[in-house]
């Protein structure tokens, strides 16, 4: 098992190095130097060249990449020349808000989707199962913003119960307290994820229910409740581990579309704003960090699965 873990971590590191080179090179080609942003569009070529030389933007891209990575290891994510602020401080202002929104949605989605998927598997092809399956199919094919718009129409405009804009407060405590403003964005993200999770949960539960050990558990007279709780749920939940791992990047980096729709000042909206401002250092750091968490999420999910499932550990 140790050998497997070491190999798995080794590949992750190689993949991370590859990703960082790829993303850095891509943005370097698109946007070699922020000189024009600092000096203004009318700056002379000589001034631009001098600025590039002074700030190291005239070096070969690989040298720039190495110093960028070196800075990353020292906690320096780069500098946003557009906003005159370090990228790290920009992220620090907003990360809590993104984690709150995505975290609440993820938590609710798990709490709803797991029992729902199990219920659908147990009552397979019943009316309830069909209703939820159809709903999941529609949600699954729906861009999250369309669901959000429908919610806004119903709960904020037709029946003005909730706010159509997320909380604008800079204090995370105020944001958390302002449930009238946060309910719609959280609900939108939750439902989209419930559709995704419950389909996997239903599918894996159905597989587990057909296994011999479930038949044995029933045959030895165990009450159905215990069969489900002790024997089915734990095995059927394994794909959820992977799904939660895959949600990790959203959890940290926020959800671009939902934050945009509800004008929620999280990291996703920061990325969107940076797009319009051509703020490449921020875009670079954001994309890299998201990719890092994709890799980390996969790694953590795989390790968790190995711990949870002896079949993987011993294979």
């Amino acid at each position, binding site marked *: 098992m140790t050998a497997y873990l070491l190999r798995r971590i080794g*590949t992750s590191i*190689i*993949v991370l190095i*590859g*990703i960082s080179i*790829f*993303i850095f090179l*891509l943005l370097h080609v*698109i*946007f070699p130097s922020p000189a024009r942003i600092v000096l203004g569009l009318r700056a002379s070529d000589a001034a631009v060249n001098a600025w590039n030389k002074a700030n190291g933007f005239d070096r070969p891209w690989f040298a720039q990449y190495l110093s960028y990575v070196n800075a990353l290891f020292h906690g320096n994510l780069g500098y946003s020349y557009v906003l005159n602020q370090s990228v790290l401080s920009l992220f620090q202002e907003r990360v809590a808000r993104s984690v709150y929104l995505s975290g609440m949605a993820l938590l609710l989605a798990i709490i709803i989707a797991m029992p729902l998927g199990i219920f659908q598997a147990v009552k397979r092809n019943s009316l309830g199962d069909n209703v939820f*399956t159809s709903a999941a*199919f*529609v949600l*699954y*094919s*729906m*861009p999250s*913003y*369309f669901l959000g*718009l*429908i919610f*806004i*129409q119903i709960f904020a*405009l037709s029946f003005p119960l909730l706010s*159509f804009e997320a909380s604008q407060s800079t204090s995370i405590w105020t944001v958390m307290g302002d449930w009238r403003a946060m309910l719609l964005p959280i609900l939108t993200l939750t439902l*989209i*994820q419930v559709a*995704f999770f419950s*389909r*996997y949960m*239903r*599918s*894996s539960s*159905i*597989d587990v229910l*057909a*296994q011999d050990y479930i038949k044995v558990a029933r045959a030895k007279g165990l009450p159905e409740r215990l069969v489900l709780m002790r024997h089915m749920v734990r095995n059927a939940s394994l*794909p959820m581990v*992977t*799904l939660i791992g*895959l*949600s990790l990047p*959203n959890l940290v*980096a926020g959800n*671009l*579309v939902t934050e*945009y729709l509800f004008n929620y000042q999280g990291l996703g909206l920061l*990325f*969107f704003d940076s*797009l*319009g401002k*051509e703020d490449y250092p921020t*875009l670079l750091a*954001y*994309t890299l960090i*998201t*990719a890092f968490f*994709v*890799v980390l999420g*996969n790694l953590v999910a795989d390790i968790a699965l190995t711990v949870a499932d002896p079949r993987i550990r011993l294979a």
Partner: protein
Amino acid sequence: MAMGQPASLPPLDVGRAPEGGEVGAIQSGWRLALREFSRNRLAVTGIAILVFFVIFCFLGPLFYHGDILNVNPIAANEPPGAGHPLGTDTNGFDVLGQLMKGGQAALEIGFFAAFVGITIGSLVGAVAGLIGGIVDATLMRVVDIFLSVPFLFVVLILAVRYGASVLSLSLVIGGFTWPVPARLVRGEVLTIRERDFVLAARTAGSGNWRLIFRHLLPNALGVVIVNVTFQVADAILAVAYVGFLGFGLHYPNTDWGDLLSNGVGYLTDGYWWLIYPVGTCIVLTVMALNFIGDALRDSMDVRLRRR
């Protein structure tokens, strides 16, 4: 939400039989698959919806001439009525005509991006699976890298810098979605390459490329075809996101996401015809493709066949 289906998860579907189901008698695979597919009501519905949208978007403009090019402030934001079955938008453009135009872009990008992704993916997967060793390991790390790059962000960055067109969006989306088919095809090739007919072909003097094109890819076609529909669905959704964020196609072209984002500004005014028709188009098209994909997967899966 993550795009596509992660490879580490079991295949999911709705009407799926439990593992270890009955295995039927062996008949000609493709004909059996076709029969199974055509018996699936959801699949037939999916095909019908998709055909409807193809006709609606590509043939519709031949019969219905809504003005979507000349700005007409007098006829702006009119509700559905005579002359404009689905009303007009803020520029006085006919919404029904725009739906057709936007749908053309969505379908073109969807299918072309899937074509690009599948082509690259199949080749990479087949080469990796057939040759194995260091080539395989390297290519699979490249696959891992592309799978981990948050591709919507890269699409947005490229769209901001270079502008978006049907061609550029298709190439970029295809260029980032090939890893999934690559993994699938590699998995298939790993089992196919051990079969006797491959050995026979090799003994007869087939080179690697001939093996790939004549023997491996045709036999891996099943997984590829299933994957195509999901790729198209994902690409259409991706374009809908890019368009909604304002970085999709713009006048004189348009896409569904772009149309919807134009309508959002008028949500409080109650101009529902700018939002719901186009949203419904996106959902129906993607859903139809998902239906077809699920049904194809079931019909190819021997374990799930009824007989």
